[in-house]
């Protein structure tokens, strides 16, 4: 009993990171129709920039390191959109090649700059501890850093939902997800929103990578892969283009992986992919009705 609670708690903290990745991936897909294979790379850059700043530039300044990683994600996302992706809107084949290419190049860059082997990242002392909650059925260990990540995920979800539903920019993005051409025909320069969404999406991925580094305490040039895959699965579960769906889908995935890890750990990597395939075949609009 205690074990499953710990698994669930840890799973949900990773779910918060899936969410940061998936939400941005989903809105990018919904608005621009771009399947962004370079998203995991932005996550990776977030993790490495975080460590670089946290260790060398502003030593032990957790907040500044997170901000720098988020900015890095924003800038790289901005450059990706402005220089590469804006040229291939509507051309799915070219988009796949370009985002895959960017992913390979920018992942290799990480390897070249920071080396191929695993790097250790410390947790900020304030969040490094853990609470031991005693119950009749055993002890549940709550890592403070993981709790922090969950809280941050919830805050981003609430804030993002508010921005998307209560502001004119959010309204424009939601309208564009359904029909970007019509948004243009109403006199709105939708290309500006494409750039904005791509850059903010990059910022979210970078932010996720920054949160991830101290969570896992080691990072390698492969760290982005799992999160990219999970984010794609969450986008499929939650419905493409849906922010709320990404939040629900991430939670769903986190819980599912924890439960499978507890019961049949051997299939915990295969199961999400199989689920994605099933949903794509039988319910391509996603599992959740509301968006």
């Amino acid at each position, binding site marked *: 009993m205690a074990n499953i609670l710990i698994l669930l708690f840890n799973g949900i903290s990773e779910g918060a990171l899936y969410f940061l990745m998936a939400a941005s991936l989903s809105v990018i897909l919904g608005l621009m129709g771009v399947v962004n294979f370079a998203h995991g790379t932005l996550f990776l850059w977030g993790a490495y920039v975080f460590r670089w700043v946290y260790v060398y530039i502003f030593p032990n300044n957790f907040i500044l390191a997170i901000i720098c990683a988020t900015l890095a994600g924003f800038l790289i996302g901005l450059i990706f959109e402005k220089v590469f992706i804006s040229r291939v809107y509507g051309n799915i084949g070219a988009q796949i090649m370009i985002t895959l290419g960017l992913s390979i190049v920018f992942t290799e860059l990480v390897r070249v700059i920071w080396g191929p082997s695993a790097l250790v990242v410390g947790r900020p002392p304030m969040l490094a501890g853990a609470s031991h909650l005693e119950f009749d059925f055993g002890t549940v260990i709550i890592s403070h850093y993981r709790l922090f990540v969950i809280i941050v995920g919830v805050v981003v979800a609430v804030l993002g939902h508010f921005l998307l539903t209560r502001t*004119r920019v959010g*309204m*424009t993005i*939601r*309208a564009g997800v*359904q*029909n970007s*051409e*019509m*948004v*243009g*025909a*109403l*006199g*709105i*320069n*939708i*290309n500006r929103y494409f750039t904005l969404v791509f850059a903010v999406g990059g910022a979210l991925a970078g932010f996720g990578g920054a949160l991830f580094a101290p969570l896992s305490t080691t990072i390698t040039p492969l760290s982005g892969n799992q999160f990219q895959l999970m984010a794609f699965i969450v986008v499929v579960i939650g419905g493409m283009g849906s922010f709320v769906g990404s939040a629900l889908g991430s939670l769903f995935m986190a819980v599912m992986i924890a439960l499978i890890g507890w019961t049949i750990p051997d299939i915990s990597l295969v199961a999400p992919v199989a689920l994605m395939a099933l949903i794509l075949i039988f319910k391509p609009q996603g599992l959740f009705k509301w*968006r």
Partner: protein
Amino acid sequence: MSLLKVNDLVSYIGLFTILQGVSMEIQQGEAVAILGRNGAGKTTFLRTVMGLVKTRSGSITFNDASIIGKATHKISKLGIGYCPEDYGVFDLLTIEENLVLATHKKNAATRDRIAYVLDLFPDLKLAYKRHARTLSGGQRQMLSVGRSLVNSPALILIDEPSKGLAPVVIEKMALALKEIAKQSTIVLVEQNFHMALIVTDRYYIIDEGRTVHGGLMKDLENDKELQQRHLGL
């Protein structure tokens, strides 16, 4: 002075040349019908004017300035409202949000315009805070047309507003368009001859991507042979 002038327009989608010579001249204050069979190129014509389909040759001028090659949002801002064939309504936005999103300026004039739209289509007033996905086909069309009016555009392009609507709703829509035509210039793509007759005075016929005929609606009404030949009525 003509508000919209199109000369020998040729436009294409991918490898297909769709319009192969469309010409017309529309004066300020007119209501003009674009008629033609299915697949004639009527929708493509409106989309080409809006900058959504690429032009190969020919000219389009609005208020005597060329709009070829301009971005769609800039064309819209020049004062052209557009109601596409599938309404282009945003399902997950409320009626209010659909209208507000379309406003170019936030001022008293646009607030008055929204009030005007709601008076014109009371259905929209009743559903004002509801999501557009809850609207019926006719109400979506009202929202689409209403939304195109909020900036008081000089010209409104409307693509088959009668499509898929019940006869009573068509009648209602036709009367609303007639009302709108008192204030704005309208280009109305229609296959419903009755609707075109109520709203417009003049017509062009597009066939296989070309304007093949034009004249007064009241003459066309009496010329069964022409109707048969170009419209298959």
